[in-house]
């Protein structure tokens, strides 16, 4: 029987929303205070949802130790206490939470094989959240 398991994680990072394809005025109009050249930070909450049949022997969709280990090594280590703009995946992309969702989804999709990845949901603040389910 198939079930969906969701795990929440947290990391803190800074970013600046700025596009080189726009003029300074356009950047300011589009991103407002998020365009501050010195950047600003958030405590991001990342929810990872995976699914699959519940294994008869373990009662699990996947072992949480495996999921936690992967997320810790590949995602939290990568993003926690970093400036997102400095990372290669945001060299040419604005580090909006939409793009962060896609980047984290891609890391999981590529590297985590223990269960089917349903979605990545990120809370940038308590008041806004973003989800990415993949392109298909």
């Amino acid at each position, binding site marked *: 029987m198939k079930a969906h398991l969701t795990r*929440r*994680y947290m990391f803190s990072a800074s970013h600046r929303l700025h596009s080189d394809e726009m003029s300074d005025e356009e950047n300011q109009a589009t991103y407002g205070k998020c365009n501050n050249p010195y950047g600003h930070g958030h405590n991001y909450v990342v929810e990872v949802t995976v699914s699959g049949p519940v294994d008869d022997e373990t*009662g699990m969709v996947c072992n949480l130790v495996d999921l936690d280990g992967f997320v810790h090594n590949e995602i939290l280590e990568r993003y926690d206490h970093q400036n997102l703009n400095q990372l290669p995946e945001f060299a040419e992309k604005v580090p909006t939470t939409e793009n962060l969702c896609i980047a984290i989804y891609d890391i999981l999709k590529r590297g985590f094989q223990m269960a089917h990845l349903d979605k990545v949901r990120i809370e940038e603040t308590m008041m806004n959240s973003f989800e990415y389910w993949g392109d298909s």
Partner: protein
Amino acid sequence: MVYLTRKAEFSASHFYHNPRFTPEENQRVFGKCNNPNGHGHNYTLEVTVKGAVNPKSGFVVDLKQLKEVMSREVLDAFDHRFLNKEVPEFLTRIPTTENLAIVIWQRLAPKLNTAQLHRVRVYETPDLFVDFYGEDFYGEDSHGDAGKREA
């Protein structure tokens, strides 16, 4: 179609152990959850039902009836219990959060007569929860993403 969710809480203890595994395998697979004396959680249960809004009452479901069924079938059986020893389903199944969601679905589904069960969500902690949509939800698409269909 309108979806309605009711929450409830229960506190229970459990441990993870498969009698077909060796002690070493049990320890490797289940880690500290394998402690035979058990450990506990404050679980939060969310039950979502769906249905058409009754034109006379304006209700999808009689909330009083839903609350009674949840209390009788789940909370009375699970709250302040040692799941492995006091809930019959877990004499033969490991009381993981996945299996809790499935067992709760199986207890509730036949008892709800005014609305259809859509989802059972069980939080083991605020940072870990499992969703179960029943066996018939996915049809031929075995990896259909449930949330997409809700959107």
